[in-house]
């Protein structure tokens, strides 16, 4: 098998493949679709009122900003009144399904319950780009709204033409166009049954179409719940790992004993001798498939001991930060302002952020099925069209022979951009000539999924006589450029990301490198404030011109009673705050920690966060995203850290890698700032970026010692 991700071992990371900076070069897709397969998916009862060739020409523009270029590619009106909206985004718990349903319903003028939303089936939906970078809200929601608004316009035009009345004489009411004077009404089903409906929907989605004004919103801006929520609580919803196909086998893959290990030889006969077991070797790829997982596991056990491997030296977590510095591309850049310090107060610090895992509760899973030379894969991924590309390249297939379906899956947090599990399942299914389900184990997910990159961040700043930042030098080694720029007004600045040689295969994460860069910057700000003899809040405000950041900081200071709590600090208590901006939204948080000096431990007692992402589309879902970001940030701040040596992950389980649980949750005081005057920005990422630095700053306040590494530990712990 010709994959670029050797399943048995990790080679040199391929940055394009990893999609790390979310600007992956992607091929232009061109897929065909027969009416038959379309009807099969939607059910025979639904007659499609659009011409299918219109779909066949869909292709996502680079970046997937507006995948649907014809109305038909975005919206289908059934002759029975069914309204189906199509989008290339995925639902992994972040709320795209509710939000996109709301967007369509709002503009169509129908209740949300009347919209059926099909997501992320590459044979049906337009390529709206991967689901990452908080992109669904600012890009796909407007795209869906434009499509839906165009459909509504068609309905109005159709009604006016039928009744020979002016546009002003009709109105939308309960999902229908009404003509009050004659008491007549027409619905989307009537439009679908009209003679030229198909032709009308071939037109491209007009870039300028009148949208429902924010103040008129009925559906957007309200707490619509996830449309398939009931199926979640009843267990009926099928996640990728739940998909079953007739005759399906269960797969297991031989994993290398260490990163960088290469398979030299293996004896397959003992597994091949087992009844009903399929064994595949394709260069470094070795896998088995059997009628159940235990049998597959047994078969793999029979042969894994016979495998001979070559190993290569691998860095360990002990030496990680030294390793990243030594391998910095072109060396660690010097401070260009070093000659301008005369007489100024200068502070220089180094911050360290470890590798961590996303650890979504559903590990990677894929079901692959080959039929007539065509491949269908159901998998959990944030990037359906890119996975299709990986499969078509790996198996030398034209894209239209590969269909990738992403059922609503068990989360990604930036960790499921790649298609390795899909490739493995497809290779097994090809050999077995039967559908194969491959579900990674927790250990595999912890070991072979890509990691949030580690970082070494060097920061140096000088303060002028007035206590303002005169020069600012900030270098991120290895983890990425997101939020490497400072939002503060400083005299001169030099903010850079410098690549290094990754010690582990790394990739995207919730807010990317913004978690690392905000940690370093915001902790450094507190250290500078201390050097300037200023209060951390006052010091930040003195350097802030961004009104939105000022507003969330002010909100947090007020709600948290920053001044009061800071002054009446108890012996074991500390308060800290942090702010930041990313992906078009702004956030600030203040936290209170309680330190147990005897046990060198601490507990986060309270987190107050103010978050603003423009106009709020769904306050209930937004609250979930903010809460989730805070809790995930808490895990990274308190405990999460990959330990590795000799190419092996040493803590590849929830027992050794303890993620937050119920009793870790502090008192949460969350303030969602609604700004109807601003466009809506995504919210899945930014709320996380302030948690670790606010906690570190609170520990600094409580103990007088600044934690400069994550996870935050007390001195001597």
């Amino acid at each position: 098998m010709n994959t670029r991700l050797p399943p048995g071992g990790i080679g040199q990371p391929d940055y394009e493949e990893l999609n790390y900076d979310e600007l992956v070069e992607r091929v232009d897709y061109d897929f065909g679709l027969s009416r038959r397969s379309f009807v099969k998916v939607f059910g025979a009862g639904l007659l499609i009122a659009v011409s299918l060739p219109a779909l066949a020409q869909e292709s996502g523009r680079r970046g997937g900003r507006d995948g649907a270029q014809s109305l038909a590619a975005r919206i289908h009106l059934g002759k029975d009144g069914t309204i189906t909206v199509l989008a290339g985004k995925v639902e992994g718990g972040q709320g795209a399904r509710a939000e996109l349903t709301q967007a369509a319903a709002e503009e169509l003028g129908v209740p949300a319950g009347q919209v059926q939303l099909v997501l992320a089936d590459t044979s049906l939906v337009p390529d709206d780009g991967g689901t990452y970078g908080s992109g669904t809200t600012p890009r796909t929601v407007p795209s869906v709204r434009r499509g839906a608004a165009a459909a509504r316009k068609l309905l109005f035009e159709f009604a006016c033409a039928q009744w020979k009345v002016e546009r002003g004489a009709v109105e939308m009411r309960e999902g229908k166009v009404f003509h009050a004077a004659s008491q007549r009404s027409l619905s989307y089903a009537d439009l679908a049954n009209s003679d030229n409906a198909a032709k009308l929907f071939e037109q491209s989605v007009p870039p300028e179409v009148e949208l429902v004004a924010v103040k008129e919103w009925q559906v957007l801006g309200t707490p619509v719940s996830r449309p398939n929520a009931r199926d979640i609580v009843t267990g009926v919803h099928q996640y990728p790992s739940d998909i079953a196909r007739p005759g399906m086998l269960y797969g297991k893959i031989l994993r290398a004993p260490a990163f960088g290990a290469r398979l030299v030889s293996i004896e397959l006969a003992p597994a091949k001798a087992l009844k009903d077991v399929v064994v595949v070797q394709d260069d470094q790829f070795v896998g088995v498939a059997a009628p159940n997982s235990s049998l597959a596991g047994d078969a793999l056990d029979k042969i894994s001991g016979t495998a001979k491997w070559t190993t290569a030296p691998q860095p360990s977590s002990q030496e990680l930060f030294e390793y990243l510095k030594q391998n910095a591309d072109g060396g660690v850049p010097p401070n260009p302002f070093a000659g301008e310090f005369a007489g100024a107060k200068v502070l220089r610090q180094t911050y360290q952020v470890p590798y961590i895992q996303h650890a979504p509760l559903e590990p990677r899973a894929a079901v692959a099925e080959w039929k007539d030379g065509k491949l269908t894969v159901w998998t959990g991924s944030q990037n359906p069209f890119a996975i299709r590309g990986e499969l078509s390249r790996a198996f030398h297939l034209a894209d239209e022979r590969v269909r990738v379906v992403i059922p609503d899956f068990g989360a990604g947090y930036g960790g499921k951009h790649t298609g390795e599990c899909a490739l493995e399942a497809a290779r097994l299914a090809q050999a077995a000539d039967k559908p194969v389900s491959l579900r990674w184990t927790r250990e595999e997910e912890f070991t072979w999924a890509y990691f949030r990159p580690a970082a070494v961040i060097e920061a140096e700043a000088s303060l002028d006589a007035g206590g303002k930042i005169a020069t600012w030098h900030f270098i991120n080694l290895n983890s990425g450029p997101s939020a490497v720029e400072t939002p503060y007004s400083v005299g001169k600045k030099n903010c850079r990301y410098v690549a290094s040689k990754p010690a582990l295969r790394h990739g995207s994460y919730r807010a990317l490198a913004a978690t690392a860069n905000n940690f370093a910057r915001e902790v450094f700000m507190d250290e500078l404030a201390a050097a300037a003899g200023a209060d951390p809040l006052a010091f930040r405000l003195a350097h802030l011109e961004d009104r939105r950041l000022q507003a969330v900081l002010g909100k947090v200071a007020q709600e948290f009673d920053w001044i009061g709590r800071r002054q009446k600090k108890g012996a074991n208590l500390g308060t800290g705050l942090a702010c930041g901006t990313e992906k078009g939204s702004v956030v600030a948080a203040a936290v209170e920690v309680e330190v147990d000096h005897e046990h060198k431990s601490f507990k986060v007692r309270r987190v107050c966060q103010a978050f603003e992402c423009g106009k709020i589309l769904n306050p209930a879902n937004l609250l979930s995203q903010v809460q989730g970001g805070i809790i995930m940030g808490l895990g990274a701040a308190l405990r999460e850290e990959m330990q590795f040596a000799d190419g092996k992950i040493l803590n590849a389980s929830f027992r050794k890698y303890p993620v937050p649980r119920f009793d870790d949750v502090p008192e949460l005081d969350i303030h969602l700032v609604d700004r109807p005057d601003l466009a809506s920005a995504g919210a899945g990422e930014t709320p996380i970026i302030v948690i670790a630095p606010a906690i570190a700053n609170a520990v600094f306040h409580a103990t007088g010692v600044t934690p400069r590494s994550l996870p935050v530990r007390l001195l001597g712990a």
Partner: protein
Amino acid sequence: MLAGVLIFAGGKLLLESVLFEHQFRENYQPQRVMTAIGGPGEKGVDLFKVRRIVSAKHHAVREPLMETKISFTLNGKARSVTTDPQRSLLEVLREDLRLTGTKYGCGEGQCRACTVLVNGASTASCITSVADVDQQAVTTIEGLADGDKLHPVQAAFLSEGAFQCGYCTAGMVMGVVGALTENPQASESEVMAKMQKHICRCGSYVKYSKAIKRVLAPSGKGHA
């Protein structure tokens, strides 16, 4: 190899690898671990399971056992499977019986996405062998609703929109139902102590807690 994994406590075998309580947690109670490993009742430790877990942990070659007929009550109906008795209940539920509402999350009882009820007790099906439920009563998430009528715990989780990706939800629901089956008068803190075993990686804990409060105080009193 086994010596490092198996420890004796109270005259019974304990598996280090299935100590689902965090080691740093104060409420770690060996008795509860016994219940989780041994399944419900006084059965103690199943040696099939010990072998299975140990071999899985150490990649030792597991020899399949002779297929055995195992009969149990599943969601109120009599079922039987004829299979290797060492297989986990989770695997048999999902792969043989196609009840996929019960999820795999970790395979070692750490996350409780796989929670089912065995004779009413919350049980991690990933570390329970199918042999363990022979002649027992198993309830999965699919068996909770009464036709279209949701179980009150399901209804509360739904009305709070408690979950995000929802992958842990079935386990959470079963955990709460199990806690309340065990002790219908359980206080909130007693229920929450048991829910410590469950992981929600999306961090929906606040909404889950609210939903659990709603279950415990349906009249609204004490409901934040």
